[in-house]
C-alpha cells in the first residue's frame, strides 16, 4: 500500500534523527532490529491535566507476517475496563478489592476511565468507525468494551501492510490498577488502542482482566506528547525532542524500538535523579523520576537498580536498551506502584520507609526490573501463562535479592525479625497450594489471591525446589539459554520446559506434570524415630551404658501429599554420627533400620531446607529429646504482649 512506504520512510527518518542526536534507543554495543517488527505506532497526544484526559491521533502500521490473509483486526481499549459493568470491575468486585482500591461496595466514580475511538480510518479503505464492534471473547460480557474488532472489506495478504488511522479520547481514572492520575501526577499505561497478536493460528486479544493484561507484538513507537511546559515527563524508549510551543505547552517526543507497549508519566513536581549502569552492552542510563519527599529513598533506588542490573547482566543476559526509566509514584498513589512496561517501571516507597525493610523500594524495584527480561523481552502471553512472566520473575527476584541482601534477610531484617524472600514466596503459595495448576489461563484462576499465590509463589517455590534435582547453576544456565533464545519472541510454556530439560540434560516430565500441569501437594513427614535395645527380651541383660549398649533404631518416613519428589533424610545419633539417606519418594512410606551402639537423636527430612514446596515444615523432623528453646522464646513474647496490653488497658482505670 502507498501509505506504508510513507510511514516506513518517516519511521526511518525519525530513527535516523534520533541516532544522529545520540538518542539511539539501544545501548552502545547494540544495533537493531532485535525483533520481528510487526507494528509501528505513531501517536500524537495532547494531555489536558484539568480533565485528566488525552486526545490523540494514532497511526498504526501493521505488517502481516502471519503467512495468511487477515480480514479482521481486534484491538484492546483497556481504559474501558474502568466502568462499573466491565469484566475487570466484575472480577475486582467478586474478590472485594484490587490492591488498595475497594471494589466491594458501591461503585466509586473516581475509578471511572474510558477510551473512545472517535474516528477509525483504514488507509485504502476509508472511514470504518461505524463498523467498530465490541467483542468479549473470554466471558461474553456484552457490557465489556475493552476489545473491539474491525472487519476489512478485503483481506491483508501475507507480507503486506495495513495502516490504521485512529483518533481517540482517553479519560484516566484516579489511579487504579497502575494507571491514572493523583493530584498532578499521571501514569498513562494501557492508554491507546492496541492491536491484538496473531498467535498459534488465531487472533489472541483477551479482554482486560483484573489479574492479567499483557500480550502484544513487537515494533516501533514514535510518540509525541503535548502538555503544560512545567511538567516533567518520562516514557518508554528515549526522548528525541522537546519543543516549546510558545503557548504554555511543550511537545516531547519519544522513540522506542523492539518493544511491545508504550507507557508514560508526567508531573510538574518530579525530581530527576540519573545514574549510569555499565553493562556488557555498554552504558545504560537509569532515569529516576521521584519526589523531594522521598529523598531518603533516592540512593536506595539507584543502588538496587545497579545491583539488580549487574546480576541480570551476569546471570541471564544483557539489557540492550539505552535507558531504563524508574518512576517513584507520589504518596497516595500506591496503585501506580509496582508496574512494568518496556524500558519503564514503577517502584514504590514511603518517605519514612525503614532501611531493613526491603519491600519498599528495593524488592518492588528489583521485581519490576526483572520484568524487562520476563515480559518486555521474553514476551510470553501473560493472559494465558502468567507464570512464565510473574512466576519466573519471582524466582529470579529471590535469587537477586538473596544475593544482594542475604538469604534469610532479603525481605526483612528489622528490629530483630528476619525473613527471606524465599519464605515470602512460600508463604503466598501455601495458602493456595492445591487450587490451580500453573498451566491454567491465569485470568481463570479461582480468585485474586489464588492467582497471586499460584502465579508468583508457586512458580518461585517450584523452581527453587527444582534446584534440588538439576542444581542451582544448571537452572541459572537454563534461564540464560531461555532468555537468549526466546527474547523478542512469544514463547510458550512448552518452550520454557523444553529448554530446561535440554540444559539440564534430563527429562523432567514427571516433575512438570505435577508442578506445572497438576495441583498435587508436596508434603513429607518423619513419622517415627526411636531406638530400642536389641536385647530387650533378655531379662538378665546388663544396664544401659552409653557406647556399649546396642540399639535398633527405626526411622519411618511418610509421604503425605500426592507430589512425588526425591528427598534426603538426615539421621543423627548420640555418638556424634550423622547419616544421610536418599529416598525417591515413590512409595507412600520408607523405613530405615540401624543397629548401632548409639541411640537416635533426631531425624529430619530435607535437612538443608531446600524443598520449598513442602507444605508443612513442622512435620519434617522428630527429635528424641524435647526442644524447648523456641517454645519458651515465643511464649515469653506472647506473655509480654499479654502483660503489656493488660497494663495499657489498666491505664483507663
Amino acid at each position, binding site marked *: 500500500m502507498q501509505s506504508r512506504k510513507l510511514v516506513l520512510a518517516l519511521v526511518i527518518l525519525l530513527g535516523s534523527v534520533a541516532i544522529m542526536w545520540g538518542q539511539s534507543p539501544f545501548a552502545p554495543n547494540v544495533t537493531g532490529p532485535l525483533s520481528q517488527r510487526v507494528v509501528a505506532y505513531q501517536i500524537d497526544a495532547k494531555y489536558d491535566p484539568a480533565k485528566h484526559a488525552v486526545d490523540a491521533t494514532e497511526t498504526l502500521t501493521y505488517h502481516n507476517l502471519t503467512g495468511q490473509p487477515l480480514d479482521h483486526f481486534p484491538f484492546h481499549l483497556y481504559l474501558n475496563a474502568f466502568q462499573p459493568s466491565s469484566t475487570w470491575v466484575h472480577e475486582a468486585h467478586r474478590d472485594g478489592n484490587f490492591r488498595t482500591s475497594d471494589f466491594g461496595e458501591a461503585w466509586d466514580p473516581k475509578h471511572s476511565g474510558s477510551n473512545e475511538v472517535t474516528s477509525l480510518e483504514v488507509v485504502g479503505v476509508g472511514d470504518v468507525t461505524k463498523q467498530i464492534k465490541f467483542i468479549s471473547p473470554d466471558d461474553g460480557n456484552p457490557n465489556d468494551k475493552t476489545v473491539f474488532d474491525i472487519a476489512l472489506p478485503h483481506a491483508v495478504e501475507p507480507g503486506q501492510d495495513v495502516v490504521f488511522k485512529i483518533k481517540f479520547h482517553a479519560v484516566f481514572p484516579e489511579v487504579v490498577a497502575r494507571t491514572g492520575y493523583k493530584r498532578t501526577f499521571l501514569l498513562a499505561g494501557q492508554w491507546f488502542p492496541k492491536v491484538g497478536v496473531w498467535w498459534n493460528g488465531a487472533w489472541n486479544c483477551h479482554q482486560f482482566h483484573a489479574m492479567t493484561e499483557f500480550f502484544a507484538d513487537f515494533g516501533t513507537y514514535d510518540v509525541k506528547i503535548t502538555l503544560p511546559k512545567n511538567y516533567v515527563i518520562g516514557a518508554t524508549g528515549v526522548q528525541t525532542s522537546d519543543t516549546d510551543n510558545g503557548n504554555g505547552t511543550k511537545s516531547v517526543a519519544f522513540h522506542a524500538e523492539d518493544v511491545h507497549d508504550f507507557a508514560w508519566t508526567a508531573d510538574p513536581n518530579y525530581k530527576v535523579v540519573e545514574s549510569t549502569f555499565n553493562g556488557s552492552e555498554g552504558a545504560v542510563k537509569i532515569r529516576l523520576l521521584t519526589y523531594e519527599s522521598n529523598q531518603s529513598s533516592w540512593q536506595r533506588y539507584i543502588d538496587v537498580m545497579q545491583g539488580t542490573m549487574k546480576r541480570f547482566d551476569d546471570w541471564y543476559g544483557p539489557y540492550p536498551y539505552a535507558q531504563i526509566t524508574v518512576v517513584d509514584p507520589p504518596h497516595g498513589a500506591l496503585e501506580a506502584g509496582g508496574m512494568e512496561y518496556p524500558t519503564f517501571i514503577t517502584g514504590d516507597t514511603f518517605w519514612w520507609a525503614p532501611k531493613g525493610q526491603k519491600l519498599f523500594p528495593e524488592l518492588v524495584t528489583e521485581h519490576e526490573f526483572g520484568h524487562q527480561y520476563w515480559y518486555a523481552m521474553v514476551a510470553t502471553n501473560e493472559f494465558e501463562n502468567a507464570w512464565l512472566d510473574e512466576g519466573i520473575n519471582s524466582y529470579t527476584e529471590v535469587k537477586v535479592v538473596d544475593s544482594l541482601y542475604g538469604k534469610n534477610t532479603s525481605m526483612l531484617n528489622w528490629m530483630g525479625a528476619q525473613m527471606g524472600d524465599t519464605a515470602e514466596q512460600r508463604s503466598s503459595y501455601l495458602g493456595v497450594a492445591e487450587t490451580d495448576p500453573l498451566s491454567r489461563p491465569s485470568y481463570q484462576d479461582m480468585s485474586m489471591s489464588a492467582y497471586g499465590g499460584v502465579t508468583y509463589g508457586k512458580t518461585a517455590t517450584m523452581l527453587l525446589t527444582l534446584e534440588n534435582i538439576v542444581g542451582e547453576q544448571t537452572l541459572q544456565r537454563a534461564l540464560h539459554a531461555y532468555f537468549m533464545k526466546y527474547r523478542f519472541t512469544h514463547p510458550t510454556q512448552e518452550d520454557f520446559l523444553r529448554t530446561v530439560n535440554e540444559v539440564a540434560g534430563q527429562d523432567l516430565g514427571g516433575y512438570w506434570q505435577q508442578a506445572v500441569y497438576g495441583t498435587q501437594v508436596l508434603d513429607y513427614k518423619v513419622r517415627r524415630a526411636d531406638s530400642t535395645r536389641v536385647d530387650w527380651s533378655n531379662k538378665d541383660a546388663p544396664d544401659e551404658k552409653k557406647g556399649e549398649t546396642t540399639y535398633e533404631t527405626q526411622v519411618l518416613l511418610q509421604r503425605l501429599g500426592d507430589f512425588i519428589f526425591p528427598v534426603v533424610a538426615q539421621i543423627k545419633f548420640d555418638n556424634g554420627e550423622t547419616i544421610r539417606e536418599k529416598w525417591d519418594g515413590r512409595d507412600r512410606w520408607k523405613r530405615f533400620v540401624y543397629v548401632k551402639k548409639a541411640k537416635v537423636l533426631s531425624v529430619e527430612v530435607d535437612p538443608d531446607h531446600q524443598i520449598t514446596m513442602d507444605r508443612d515444615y513442622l512435620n519434617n523432623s522428630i527429635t528424641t529429646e524435647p526442644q524447648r528453646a523456641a517454645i519458651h522464646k515465643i511464649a515469653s513474647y506472647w506473655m509480654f504482649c499479654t502483660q503489656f496490653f493488660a497494663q495499657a488497658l489498666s491505664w483507663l*482505670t
Partner: protein
Amino acid sequence: MADENKGLVAAGASLVWRRQRVLWWVYAVNVALGILGAAGAHTALNKALKYSLAGESLTKGFDLGMYFELTDQPAVNLMRSAGSSMLFALLFPLFMVFVVGGILAVYRDDRRFTAGEFFAASGSFFWRFVRLAIFSLVPFALLGMALSGIRRLSDYIGDRVIAAQTGFYILLAGTIVVVLLLLFVRLWFDIAQVRAVVQDERRMWPNIWKALGISWRNRLTLFRVYLCISGVAWAVLAIGIFIWAKLPPTATPVTFVLPQLIILTQLGVRLWQRASAVTWYKRHAVEVPADTVEFTTPAPVELVEPPAEPLANPAEDRPEPEEGLAT
C-alpha cells in the same frame, strides 16, 4: 510526713519505693495473668515444636517465615490462643479497679497495711471506682473520636498536597494534643479517686466535677508532674525496645528479663503518678492522720477544696495554707 520537703515527683517516687510491696503485688498479678494468657500459646507451641527441629530458626534468630507457618498451621493454630490472652489481659484492669482503693489508702497513710486492711480499703472504694471508671469512659471516648477525626482530616489534607509529610505532621500534631488531653483526663480522674479516698467522698458525680475544678486550677503543677513521670515511662519503653532489638537472637534469658523490666517499670510509673497525686492532695488539700482512718466506716473529714492557683514550686516549700484550707 517523711517527704515533706521533697518535690512532688521525688516524693511520689519515694513513696512508691517505701511502699514497694504494692508494686510487687501488682506486678505479680500482671505476671500471673501474662502466664495464664500465654498458656494456650505455650500448649500449641509445645504440640508443634517440642519434638521437632522446626523451631531452630526461631531460636537462632526470629524467622518470621517460620512464625507465620506456625500461626497458619491448622493443627497448631497459634492465633486461636489470642482470644484467651485477650481475656486474661482484660482481667487486669478489673483487678486494678478493685485494688486501687487499697493502694491509695496505703499511699495516703504511708504505712504498711495488713492484708485485711488492704482488702477492706479496696472493697470499701470498689463500687465508687467502678462508677468513676464508667464516667471516665465518656471523655476517653470523646478523645478517641477526636483522634479518629484528626486521622480523617490528615488523610484528607495529606491526599491533596504534594508534600508527603504534611498528612503525617498533621496527624502527629493532632495525636500529641489528644495524648496530652488524655493525660489530663487521667489526671482528673486520678484526683477524683484520691479525693474519694482521702476525704471518703461517697458521691461520685459531684466528686468528678470538684476533681475537675481542682485539676484545672492546679493544672500547671499537676500536669507537669504527670507529664514528667509519663516521660520516664516512654523513655524506658523506647530504650528497652532499642536494647531488645540489639540483643542477639539466642539471648533468650535476657529477652525474657528485659521485657519484664519494661512491664515492671510501666506499672511502677503508673503507681508513681498515683503516689504523687496523693502526696500533692495531702499537702495542698487536706491532711488526714493515718490513725484516724476507719476503712469500713471512714471518719468524716471536713471537705475543703485545694487552692485556686497553682503553687509556684511545691517542691521547695510547702506554702502557707490559704484561708479555709484545713491543716
